[in-house]
């Protein structure tokens, strides 16, 4: 077993082990055991990411496991966000009760489900074949739906039910596409579904095209691409904040990576232009659907959820344009979005303690009533809006430039216009949320603020580093490896 395979195995096995330990240890040991396990898992995931990204030309590809630059990037993001979510979970649990599991079992159920979610989520980008990737994506639904409905409040039950049903139905259509693909491909089914075999063996034809469309449309329901995104704002706004962070910053791009791998693998059969046009189409529609919501005064977590729709659209456009510039933009965008979005969701715990109205209404003037919380929210929203020096400003420029480089001038121009409109909406929200007229003037306590402010400082450093990385990334081996893919 190679060092990459060993690390990949450890990255997935550790959160599984954490979940098992959490299920059996005495009640008072649940939280320390869970946090220790998830922090260690996150550290190993980041180590695997560093190995994959510092040697992007050295691929590890079998029928079951793939460790390439794209998997390394995603595993690193999942490790980082999983680790941070574990660290802020105690503050959330201090303010919450579980209606789904009751007060006695709530903490244990929360950490067991969180560890299971992190385990299957980490395995998604490492899956070496389409069948395994589908199984893992479906498994993320079961683990994360429990967490979405954790509070047991009516709105959380509604969000969790919609999430469970719509994504399962979408993935059902994806599985139909996989069955069609398997029927069109010679050879035994599992070998035929490995990324390399799909690329080499799938014949061109109507069946393959229909299969491709079914798979991508089904995955789109899980990625939250418009117009099949209905569950996304509800689930992201009603889940516990540490879980919302994982859903938005890690789950959506991880499933997007599967859709991208499908497109890359089937390009020889369905045509390069067709496959990429489908991704660009989803990207533009997602941007267009998200913009009107970014202009409206929305509750903090719902605003962040619609921003996820926008950013998944940007990433879809980047992988659809598929030039080195666009792919450099995608890499920076996935990492920058994860850091900024996770920070925004983490800020929701102290925000809801400080201003309970924030659960259902837009809040204003937080920087005046609670400056450090306002600053943290400002860093998150400013970065998500693409306000320079946010790395998302640079990544969006790279994606647009990549669109022109790919000869997709109309799509690139439309992207620029839509992103400008989105920027205006989020910039307005930034000004109002932080510096607007506050609803309350007292400086009351904001529970769980300290770890969030600490993460805000760390996030600022990472965001600035990513902004610097955006300048040299287009000419690196990492982008070359992303462009080359597995084949």
């Amino acid at each position, binding site marked *: 077993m190679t060092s990459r395979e060993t690390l990949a195995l450890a990255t997935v096995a550790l959160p599984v082990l954490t979940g098992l330990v959490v299920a059996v240890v005495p009640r008072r040991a649940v939280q320390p055991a869970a946090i220790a396990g998830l922090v260690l898992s996150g550290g190993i995931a980041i180590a695997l990411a560093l190995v994959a990204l510092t040697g992007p030309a050295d691929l590890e590809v079998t029928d079951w496991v793939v460790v390439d630059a794209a998997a390394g990037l995603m595993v690193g993001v999942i490790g980082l966000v999983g680790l941070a979510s574990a660290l802020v979970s105690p503050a959330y649990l201090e303010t919450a009760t579980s*209606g*789904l599991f009751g007060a006695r079992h709530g903490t244990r159920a929360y950490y067991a489900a969180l560890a299971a979610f992190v385990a299957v989520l980490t395995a998604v980008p490492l899956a070496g074949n389409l*069948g*395994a990737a589908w*199984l893992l994506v*479906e*498994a993320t*639904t*079961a683990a994360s*739906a*429990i967490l979405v*409905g954790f509070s*047991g409040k*009516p*709105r959380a*039950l*509604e*969000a*969790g*039910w*919609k999430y*469970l*049903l719509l994504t*399962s*139905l979408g993935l*059902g*259509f994806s*599985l*139909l596409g996989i*069955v*069609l693909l*398997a*029927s*069109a491909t010679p*050879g*035994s*089914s*599992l070998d035929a*579904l490995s990324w390399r075999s799909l690329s080499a063996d799938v014949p061109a*034809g*109507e*069946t393959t095209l*229909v299969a491709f469309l079914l798979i991508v449309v089904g995955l789109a329901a899980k990625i939250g691409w418009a117009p099949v995104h209905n569950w996304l*704002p*509800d689930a992201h*706004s*009603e889940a516990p904040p540490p879980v919302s962070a994982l859903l938005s910053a890690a789950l959506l791009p991880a499933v997007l990576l599967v859709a991208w791998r499908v497109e890359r693998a089937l390009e020889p059969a369905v045509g390069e232009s067709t496959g990429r046009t489908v991704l660009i189409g989803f990207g533009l529609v997602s941007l267009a659907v998200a913009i009107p*919501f970014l202009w*409206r005064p*929305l509750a903090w977590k*719902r605003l962040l959820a619609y921003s996820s729709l926008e950013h998944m659209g940007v990433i879809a456009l980047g992988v659809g344009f598929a030039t080195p510039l666009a792919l450099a933009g995608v890499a920076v965008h996935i990492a920058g979005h994860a850091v900024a979005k996770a920070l925004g969701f983490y800020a929701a715990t102290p925000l809801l303690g400080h201003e309970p109205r924030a659960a259902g209404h837009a809040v204003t003037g937080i920087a005046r009533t609670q400056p450090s919380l306002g600053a943290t929210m400002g860093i998150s929203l400013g970065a998500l809006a693409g306000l320079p020096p946010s790395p998302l400003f640079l990544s969006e420029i790279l994606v647009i430039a990549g669109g022109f480089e790919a000869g997709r001038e109309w799509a690139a121009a439309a992207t620029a216009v839509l992103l400008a409109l989105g920027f205006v909406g989020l910039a307005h929200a930034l000004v109002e949320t932080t510096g607007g007229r506050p609803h309350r003037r007292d400086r009351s306590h904001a529970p769980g603020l300290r770890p969030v402010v600490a993460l805000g400082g760390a996030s600022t450093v990472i965001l600035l580093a990513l902004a610097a990385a955006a300048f040299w990334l287009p000419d690196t081996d990492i982008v070359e490896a992303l462009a080359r893919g597995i084949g």
Partner: protein
Amino acid sequence: MSGTLAWALVALGLAVVVVRRRSVAVGLVTAQALLLAGVATAEAESADDVAAALALAVRGVALAALFLAIVARTREPRPVRAGVAPFVRAGLAILLALAFVWLVPPVGLETEQSERAMLALVAFGAAVVATRRATLHQLLGIVMVENGLVLGAIELPGGASLAIELGVALDLTLIAVVAVVFHERIFAEFGSGDTAVLESLRD
């Protein structure tokens, strides 16, 4: 697979679309799963195929036990009304199935009937999710979609991978268990498993 068996699977699926009682719908979906397990056993060519057929039967029985237990634990004062009348639901489901058969090119399963039956079951399952309001009926719609896909996997010329088939069975069971947890909590919160009460999240 014979045309009679394919039609029997489709008829069971259409019955799920129109029936009112949850327990009857559970029985129909379970009969469908057991029929599929029977077909898989009859067509098995290796030990892997037999194991997959066995897993299918176990899954069908386990889900039936789970669903019937939950029906008993969450008695509705009266059956939850669907938003759409039974004949309209059946019409919509058949139209969707015909659209699927028309849109999807021949895919090379063992027989043409099995291709059409697979697409019909997927369409009927989607129609149940879209037109029924009872949480358990919606869940049965998802199970029916998966039953259709299992039929496709059984009728693949080379057979499907055992690992993938077992994984799908396990995933579906996990989803069903989580959905049942939600159903119980929704029933406890609202006094009914009617999704019409779940409409507070709007922008």
